[in-house]
């Protein structure tokens, strides 16, 4: 069986590594049990998948490892609800289900030659991570890369190893912030949208890509507009409660568009056209 024609039937997969990212976020590296399927698996940066714990249910997460590094698929999971709490109990070797890839992806072809500004908050760095690593693996295709990332406190910062590496690279500019002062924190403090205003990046030839909690996205979009970024140069990736992942079950629509199928990646220009309430 090489083709899975039933869109609800997950592929069986094995957790090969669990990484503690923050007090309530863990990353899971998984491989599909069928080696042929794993070999043939292909996706684009920004696409998502549904993780199943059989007996508990499914939830949607972005594949946050890039397609340029195909040893495993990585998903990061914040413990917030029923399914995510059970996923947090999983260990190496445990069996899960994966339905992926789902949805659209970042228009990385259109970004070639441009300066890239990533703006992330909390676990919102996950989808950005996929694209950041993808761009770093194709570094020559892109101009300056700036990453503005914030979380509530320093322990809440995700992907600390990546952050260290990006900080050390001369071809990436990393700006970190936490909401308020914290013992031992000597970098910026303040909410991400505020820090965005402080660093005031030029919109010239620049694509801004943002993801974070809804309230952060809302103010980042407003502030990017104030910085004269054009709507079509502002990209975000949205989240919603999802069940089917194929644009049927009715939860994640913005007007006639479904985040699971037509998204999750949208430009601000598109969101305005769809009259999204952000």
């Amino acid at each position, binding site marked *: 069986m090489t083709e899975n024609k039933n869109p*609800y039937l997950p592929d069986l997969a094995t957790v090969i590594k669990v990484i503690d990212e923050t007090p309530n976020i863990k990353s899971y590296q998984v491989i599909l049990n069928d080696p042929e399927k794993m070999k043939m698996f292909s996706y684009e940066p920004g696409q998502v998948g549904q993780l*199943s714990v059989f007996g508990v249910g499914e939830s949607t997460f972005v594949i946050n490892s890039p397609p340029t590094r195909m040893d495993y698929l990585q998903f990061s999971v914040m413990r917030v609800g029923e399914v995510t709490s059970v996923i947090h109990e999983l260990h190496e070797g445990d069996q899960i289900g994966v339905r992926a890839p789902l949805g659209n992806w970042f228009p990385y072809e259109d970004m070639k030659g441009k300066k890239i500004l990533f703006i992330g908050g909390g676990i919102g760095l996950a989808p950005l991570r996929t694209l950041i690593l993808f761009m770093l693996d194709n570094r020559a295709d892109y101009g300056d890369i700036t990453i503005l990332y914030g979380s509530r406190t320093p322990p809440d910062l995700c992907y600390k190893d990546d952050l260290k590496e990006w900080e050390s690279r001369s071809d990436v500019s990393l700006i970190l912030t936490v909401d308020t002062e914290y013992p031992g924190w000597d970098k910026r403090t303040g909410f991400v949208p505020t820090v965005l205003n402080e660093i005031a990046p030029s919109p010239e030839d620049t694509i801004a890509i943002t993801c974070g909690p809804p309230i952060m996205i809302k103010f980042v979009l407003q502030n990017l507009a104030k910085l004269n970024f054009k709507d079509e140069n502002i990209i975000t990736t949205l989240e919603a409660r999802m069940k089917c992942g194929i644009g049927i079950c009715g939860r994640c629509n913005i007007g006639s568009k479904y985040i699971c199928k037509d998204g999750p990646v949208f430009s601000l220009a598109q969101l305005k056209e769809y009259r999204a309430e952000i």
Partner: protein
Amino acid sequence: MADTGFVQKEKLNDFLNELSKDAVVYAPCLEGDTVIFKAFDSGTTLCLDRPANNPPKLVVFPQSETLFSFKYKKDAEDPRKMSVELEANTDFPRAIIFGARPCDAKGFRIYDSVYIDTNTPDPYYKGRREKTMIATLCCSAPSPGCFCVAVGGGPAHREGSDVLITQLEKGYFIEPVTEKGRAILNVPRIEDGEQYAEEAHKRQLESHDLVRNPFAEDGQPKISRALFDLDEFWEHVVSKCLSCGACTYLCPTCYCFNITDEQALNNGERIRSWDGCMFSHFTLEGSGHNPRPTKFKRFKNRVGHKFLYYPEKYNGVIACCGCGRCIRHCPVSVDISEIVSYLRGPRFEFTNEPPESMGTDTNSQEQKQ
């Protein structure tokens, strides 16, 4: 072979028994005072006098169905490890819906675009749909709330039906609409219908003009986007809604669902069940964020889906078949046809008092107090 058939009135039960030999026949049957679609057998009482309270969508889209079963197994080599086996449900029995109304049949066409004509067809809906024959009874008179003619349907509309049945004085004229429907002419106890054809076709046209059209003379409402996007409009027109969700469960075109798991020991099933966009938890995220946090937003989405979003996606087709069930059975008389007729604009001013044209039923409010 004859092109049409006829079943004498007193032979209808026998005819249905013949049909039941080859498939599960779902027909509108009396249950107390209500008429509901259920599997027909010798103990059920058929009722074709009025549209069933529920639509027959449950035949193709069951209220609850198994998507697949899973089995955890201990690894023989390493008992600490568990493997999982999945088995998809492919058991879709042959079915006949007898006595659907034209609106009900049209409802399946609304489903088809979403569930079948896509790059990820739904194997469960498709499997059942292919094995189901829809025999539709033309309406001889509209029921309260009906407005099929306003949304592209009609009392003898054929879209979605495999067979059209017309009730005449002496019995039922039976007319195949699709190739699948022709099979009904092979059932024993059916006579040649030719001599009744003229009377039936005349009868089919009779009730069309009796159906109310709340939108416009030419059907197909044009919605004012300015009014649609006005929060106050929705707060005004749906303030009495209880968010009970009855409208969604009784709607032939509402297709939202939930997916949940059930497990006992090492075996379990992943189950799909009807859900409804009128419930607050429908879009509630694990974080507590809810993109449609109020009943106004949820109602706007329901009306928007049927009259704006779906038409935008599927060639202008309205995802409402005008069956009127949500109007007849709403406990507080929310009327979608009334709301859509207001949505055609022009934009009117909101005051503390509802404008006369809003038709608020003050009597019923007084009764409640």
